[in-house]
């Protein structure tokens, strides 16, 4: 009962806001939307506690039948286990905070019923995504969240740019979704079910000797699904939509494009970890893509000026970490980073949002600076956020990111390169995050006079949630302290053990992984940790020295020294241009050709040509009939001759 309420409240909120109460004031719709989510959060919390009290064993909640055809079955079944439980809390919890914040952020809007109904709808879809017990229900959420992000990115649709960004997001996601669909098809083709619990049971039951065909199929299935994950979680080469998605209101960026939706891919891979374990090639690909993405996006973020763009690319890069984690089989690490990242990235975005509001919707960091004295709270929480993300020892990012890197190193020799990329990305991360902090809050203010005199701290509605998030970002790391560090009164790797029931290594590959998990010398782990901390420290100091007051001399000289590299980075490696000129434009031209030439000229031409031909023949023959008596007779005689020929020869 309680469980259904979790899904019910956001839907109700979306319905009321979107279709019924369209004339009410923004405040009402804000209260409505937020309360719907808080209610959902409460229910989620209670359900979760019940669930833990019940021993935390996965349970399937059966709903009504949905699609049934032939042998295919996909009912509305929901799975409640530790993983989905955690996601429930993240989504509803952080969601509620962001809803509260959004009220403040959108206070200038005349009507916000659309906004909050979309947000609630998004939460509902996200819940479907994480709770669904079969690939199809997950797919509803999967595309549903895509839809909501489309609507929210294009929320200010009067500007065609935003509409375009929304469309881009939807379409790029659709590319991934095709992969997801193919994954579903393959799964059904070879395992005759799409239900997670059944699949898991089928794969894990020691008796199940999968034939070679199925093993091979698993390779393709995981690959196809990973394509889906690439779309949703903005991995190479499908990450391009996420930076553009920043066109949406900032709370949207925080909720959808940082905390929840974009992590769907990681969630899905973790959900299906038993399949991925059986597909080493796929895992290799996953890890590589993750690592490359992490570094690639981080490098782009180094030179961005738009505060939200920086955060966007940092999101991409952080997602790369999580994917890397999944790729090396460290699902718990991946999910843990998902968790921490949700906290501090939401925090960062919301903080950036506050800055943007204060700056009258200017997002260019070149016009900011020195905001520390105008908005102290924001500065404080942002500081925490930054420290968290760059992995400052003791804050959440430190624990989660290092766990991933460590597991990458220990994942086997073939993963050392990935580790290297990841470490490098970490260095970049700390550089651009500190750079962001410096350019925004330190140095002297570079904005124009008018903006300057209106600069002030935001309302409590907005900084309240920030504080909560800040506390979380600082704290949650301690849920998964690596076992080399001993903190009194804290069990190590709490989180990893928490997820153990979910992460299930199939018998076929069990011993390989146990062998990997064999004890490594503590010194090694210390060393790895030291490397990343050192890198973090150095690059942060560099950034501080470069940007402590605006664009210092070093910054400019560096920029001019590596002009080429700089230009490439500022233009994001020209990826968008590449796609545009090598995929979109050719496709468009081809369609134009298909329509104008193939369809109109050739096919339709033939159709009409037949008719024209008959008319022509008729015209000619009627012209030949001069009406002369003799010609008539002649024709008759010719006819007779033809008949006789037919007859005698």
């Amino acid at each position: 009962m309680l469980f259904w309420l979790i899904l019910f409240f956001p839907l109700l909120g979306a319905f009321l806001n979107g279709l019924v109460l369209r004339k009410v004031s923004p405040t009402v719709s804000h209260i409505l939307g937020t309360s719907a989510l808080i209610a959902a959060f409460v229910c989620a919390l209670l359900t979760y506690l019940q669930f833990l009290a019940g021993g935390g064993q996965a349970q399937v909640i059966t709903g009504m039948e949905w699609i049934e055809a032939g042998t295919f079955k996909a009912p509305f079944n929901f799975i409640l286990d530790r993983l989905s439980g955690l996601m429930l809390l993240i989504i509803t919890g952080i969601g509620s905070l962001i809803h509260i914040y959004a009220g403040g952020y959108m206070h200038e809007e005349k009507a916000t019923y659309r906004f909050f109904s979309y947000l609630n709808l998004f939460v509902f879809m996200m819940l479907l995504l994480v709770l669904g017990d079969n690939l199809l229900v997950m797919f509803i959420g999967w595309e549903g969240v895509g839809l909501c992000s489309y609507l929210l990115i294009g929320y200010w649709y009067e500007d065609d740019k935003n509409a375009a960004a929304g469309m881009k997001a939807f379409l790029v996601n659709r590319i991934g979704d095709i992969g997801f669909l193919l994954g579903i098809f393959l799964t059904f083709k070879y395992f005759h079910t799409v239900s997670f619990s059944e699949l898991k049971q089928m794969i894990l039951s020691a008796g199940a000797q999968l034939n070679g065909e199925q093993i091979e199929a698993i390779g393709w299935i995981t690959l196809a699904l990973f394509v889906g994950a690439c779309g949703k979680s903005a991995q190479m080469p499908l990450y391009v939509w996420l930076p553009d998605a920043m066109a949406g209101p900032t709370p949207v960026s925080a909720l959808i494009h940082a905390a929840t939706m974009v992590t769907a891919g990681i969630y899905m891979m973790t959900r299906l970890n038993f399949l991925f374990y059986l597909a080493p090639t796929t895992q290799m690909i996953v890890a590589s893509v993750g690592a490359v993405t992490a570094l690639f996006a981080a490098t782009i973020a180094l030179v961005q000026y738009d505060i939200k763009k920086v955060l966007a690319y940092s999101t991409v890069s952080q997602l790369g970490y999580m994917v890397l984690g999944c790729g090396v089989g460290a699902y718990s690490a991946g999910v843990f980073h998902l968790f921490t990242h949700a906290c501090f990235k939401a925090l960062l975005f919301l903080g950036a949002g506050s800055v943007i509001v204060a700056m009258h919707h200017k997002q260019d960091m070149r016009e900011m600076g020195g905001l520390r004295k105008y908005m102290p709270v924001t500065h404080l929480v942002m500081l925490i956020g930054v420290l968290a993300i760059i992995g400052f020892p003791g804050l959440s990012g430190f624990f989660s990111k290092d766990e991933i890197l460590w597991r990458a190193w220990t994942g086997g020799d073939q993963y050392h390169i990935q580790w290297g990329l990841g470490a490098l990305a970490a260095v970049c991360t700390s550089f651009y995050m500190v750079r962001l902090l410096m350019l925004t809050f330190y140095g002297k203010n570079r904005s124009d006079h008018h903006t300057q005199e209106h600069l002030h701290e935001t309302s409590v509605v907005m900084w309240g949630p920030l504080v909560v998030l800040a506390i979380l970002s600082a704290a949650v790391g301690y849920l998964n302290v690596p076992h080399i560090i001993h903190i009194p009164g804290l069990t190590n790797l709490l989180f990893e053990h928490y997820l153990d029931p979910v992460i299930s290594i199939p018998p076929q590959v069990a011993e390989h992984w146990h062998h990997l998990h064999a004890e490594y010398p503590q010194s090694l782990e210390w060393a790895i940790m030291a490397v990343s901390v050192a890198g973090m420290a150095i690059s942060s100091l560099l950034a501080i020295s470069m940007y402590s007051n605006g664009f210092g001399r070093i910054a400019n000289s560096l920029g001019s020294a590596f002009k080429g590299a700089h230009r490439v980075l500022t233009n994001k490696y020209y990826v968008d241009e590449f796609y545009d000129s090598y995929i979109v434009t050719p496709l468009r031209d081809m369609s134009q050709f298909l329509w104008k030439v193939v369809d109109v000229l050739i096919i339709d031409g033939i159709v009409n040509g037949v008719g024209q031909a008959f008319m022509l023949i008729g015209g000619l023959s009627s012209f030949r009939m001069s009406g002369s008596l003799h010609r008539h007779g002649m024709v008759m005689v010719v006819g007779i001759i033809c008949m006789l020929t037919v007859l005698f020869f």
Partner: protein
Amino acid sequence: MVSINHYLVLATFMFLCGTLGVLFRRNLLLVLMSIELMLNSVNLVFVSGSRLLGNLDGQVMVFFIITVAACEAGVGLAMVIALFRRYGTVDTNFLRILRG
């Protein structure tokens, strides 16, 4: 011994002459006469046939054909005269307004 085939060939020849006349003479009167010629060739066939087979059906037929031919000639000449009266020509090339 003259066999039936000789008659038939002769008749066919006459028939063809008539046909050619119809096809190529521009004067309506001549066209009518050519048709008469064709009918007469038919008569020839009937008569010789009836002679060969020894029954009179053929000859009966011939009488009818002659009669009918006469009627036709009457109607035809009437038309030609009417045409000549009004337009002063019996040339078939004059008959060209109905076409297509």
